[in-house]
């Protein structure tokens, strides 16, 4: 259907983005491209549209569709192909919607004469098709509805090639299932060829027929999806598969590192809210309702929930960044003043944050080392050579090369930025480290390295970790206990091992079902497709 031959793309400073990549998408089949960040997955996906991002250029190779090399087509012809035959759904599908267009116009724009009417398309993505809904603008829709409208647009032109770029990273499980069924429909009815770009191996195992593993622009392994994901040959593929968090893999029972668990931090009946919007349209969001939990010294407590369940607000209340409506936070049995400016130096140092976006948490005009030193000076009162010594210690503790501390934040990779942020938090010698979705922006290999680092630091220092995440599979690898948040309420607190085997609240069961598991998905697919050649046991 569409074929990429020997594609070579270079970026700024002649950096290699893709090197000699050849893949071919077959009608009715799904090919998955997996790999860490910077592997060139998105560049490959965009190349199928005959597009290379500004700052990059195609050096060699071709992309053939219908006997034509896309890169040699005139712009008008290329645009026609993109409109009529190839659909691309980017990482954040809602971002493809023009804010000033109504729902019906957004879908109509993509529709061909032979497509279903707009109303039917909306019903296909399980959206209402009545007039009032069709007249809405994107900002009047929920995120999930926006994603569905974007999907309706993607299928409106009955594409023959469908490119999905990290479709599951920002989408909740229900929408994920819908997307999957839409892809299947396109494949079966129209014989569409699909390229799935993802670092979530479980969703790849569910959807893909074949897999190519990309590493720094090169294909290091290719083959049938079940084979590659079950018995990878290449060392990088092996690392990818083993780094992929898996809820179904049993973890050795973890005990807190201290003999008698003394609560370091206690949240008692904490409620918090914030106001969204202004004036008459303002809405009050109850982000936390009577949330109570303990955090013992040397313990990792995972706070799990969907986006919007109030996880981050609770973290902000603990840190004194958000006023609690009611309730108390105790540190070592002493009441913490609710607001940051009322806390003294010791209290401030005791709870430190590792943020979701580490790059944004460092001043872009100063070096990363400077940011860490600043925390050393403010929280420990060290300066001059004492601070320099401490900085070197911290960098070693987070395994960051000293030379990197002289760089500015945007000059570091995502993993390095996160290490620097951890070093800065440790500079305060805190008792509690609040990690707010710190692995979301990282690929699975770097993600598991960061988690290993945190565990090692915990063993060395006995620090307590509050690990906030929506990734239950990842949390279950190293958290001692888990708390499940649903719409601001803690619905369950349990030891991780018993939680995984026997969840109590219905919301917990839902989360467990949705949690990513490569082994479970592989097993399910293998039993469903008995006709496939048996894969060798590892």
């Amino acid at each position, binding site marked *: 259907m569409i074929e990429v031959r020997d594609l070579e793309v270079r970026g700024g400073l002649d950096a290699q983005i893709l090197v000699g990549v050849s893949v071919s998408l077959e009608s009715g089949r799904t090919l998955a491209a997996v790999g860490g960040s910077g592997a060139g997955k998105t560049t490959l996906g965009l190349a199928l549209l005959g597009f290379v991002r500004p700052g990059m250029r195609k050096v060699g190779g071709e992309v053939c569709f219908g006997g034509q090399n896309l890169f040699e087509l005139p712009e008008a012809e290329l645009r026609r192909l993109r409109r009529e035959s190839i659909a691309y759904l980017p990482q954040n599908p809602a971002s493809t919607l023009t804010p000033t267009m109504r729902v019906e116009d957004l879908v109509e724009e993509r529709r061909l004469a032979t497509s279903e009417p707009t109303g039917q398309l909306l019903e296909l993505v399980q959206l209402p098709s009545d007039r009032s809904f069709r007249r809405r603008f994107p900002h009047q829709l929920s995120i999930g509805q926006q994603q569905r409208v974007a999907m309706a647009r993607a299928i409106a032109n009955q594409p023959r090639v469908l490119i999905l770029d990290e479709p599951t990273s920002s989408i909740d499980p229900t929408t994920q299932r819908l997307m999957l069924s839409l892809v299947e429909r396109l494949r079966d009815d129209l014989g569409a060829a699909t390229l799935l770009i993802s670092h979530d191996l479980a969703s790849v195992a569910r959807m893909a027929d074949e897999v190519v593993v990309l590493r720094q622009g090169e294909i290091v392994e290719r083959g049938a999806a079940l084979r590659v994901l079950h018995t990878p040959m290449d060392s990088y593929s092996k690392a990818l598969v083993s780094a992929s968090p898996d809820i179904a893999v049993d973890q050795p029972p973890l005990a807190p590192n201290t003999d008698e668990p003394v609560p370091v931090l206690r949240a008692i009946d904490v409620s918090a809210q914030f106001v969204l919007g202004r004036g008459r349209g303002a809405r009050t969001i109850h982000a936390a309702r009577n949330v109570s939990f303990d955090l013992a010294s040397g313990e990792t407590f995972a706070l799990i929930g969907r986006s919007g369940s109030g996880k981050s607000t609770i973290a902000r209340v603990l*840190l004194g960044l958000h006023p609690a409506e009611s309730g108390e936070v105790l540190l070592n049995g002493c009441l913490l003043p609710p607001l*940051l400016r009322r806390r003294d130096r010791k209290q*401030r140092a005791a709870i*430190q944050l590792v943020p979701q976006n580490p790059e944004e948490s460092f001043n*872009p005009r*100063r070096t990363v080392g400077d940011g860490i030193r600043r*925390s050393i000076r403010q929280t420990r009162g060290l300066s001059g050579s004492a601070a320099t010594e401490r900085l070197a210690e911290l960098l070693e503790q987070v395994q960051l090369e000293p030379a990197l501390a002289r760089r500015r934040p945007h*000059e570091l990779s995502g993993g390095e930025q996160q290490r620097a942020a951890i070093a800065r938090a440790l500079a305060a010698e805190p008792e509690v480290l609040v990690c707010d979705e710190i692995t979301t922006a990282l690929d699975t290999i770097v993600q598991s390295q960061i988690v290993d680092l945190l565990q090692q630091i915990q063993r060395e220092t006995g620090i307590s970790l509050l690990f906030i995440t929506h990734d239950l599979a990842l949390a279950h690898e190293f958290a001692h206990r888990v708390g499940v948040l649903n719409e601001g309420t803690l619905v369950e607190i349990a030891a991780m091992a018993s939680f995984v085997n026997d969840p109590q609240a219905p919301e917990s069961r839902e989360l467990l079902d949705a949690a990513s598991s490569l082994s479970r998905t592989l097993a399910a697919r293998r039993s469903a497709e008995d006709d496939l050649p048996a894969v060798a046991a590892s």
Partner: protein
Amino acid sequence: MTSLAGQEVVALRGRRTGRDRVSPVTVVLLAVLLAILILALFGPAIAPHDRVEVVSLPFDAEVSLLGSDHLGRDVLSRILHGGRPIVIIPVVATALATLIGGVLGVSAAALRRDDVIMRVMDVFAVIPSILVALVLFHRFGVQHWVLALAVIIVSIPFTTRYSRAAAFPIIHSGYVEQARMIGESAAMILVRDVVPNLARPMLADAGLRFIGAIYLVAAAGFLGFGPPPPSTDWGSMISENIGGAGLNPWATIAPSLMVLILTIPVNLLADRFARQVAR
């Protein structure tokens, strides 16, 4: 062969981590700007004649390089004398407007309720700039500082609005929050985090304001509100000599060109700067 390519990549990568490179176009623009600023400031010292000295009959194109003006004075000398007000007034006024607007904008961005500041600015923003200048002239007379004051008053609403928009994401950024969490004082956060990150966008905006200021000064001169004789400026020279454009066109073209040569490099530099900021 391959090792050569590898070395190249390493060398280039090293450059990226260094300071931002300055493009040759920027250098040329800066040189032009600097040259005209020096000419404007030190022109009176090198002028062949005094600004009021009559050297020939009116509009004599032959008498010197640029001929004579409507009263028979040397155009070249008057060009060299007339640069100061049109350079100094906008520079001083833009600097002050950017400073005041910056303070107001940062305060507005830092305060939760910023309606008071911004609504007052909105009221000022709708008054036409030349009207402000005329009212002030009527009240205080035609003087350099009044012109500067007019420029400041008409610029502040825009510098405030711009600095508020530029400061808002900085004040609510992760790094300012991080600084607050370790107990850094508001003054230190302002000095270390806010001002350095705000400086570039504000400078880009100041460039555009500067051009607006030049045009206001030139327009005031053209409308006859230039500094009183014997002093002169390029704007008044254009209007004084426009009647004799057929006899000695240079008497009008030369001051117009000077305004252009002053504004174009500033405009282009501000654009380049704004693009860098956006990146």
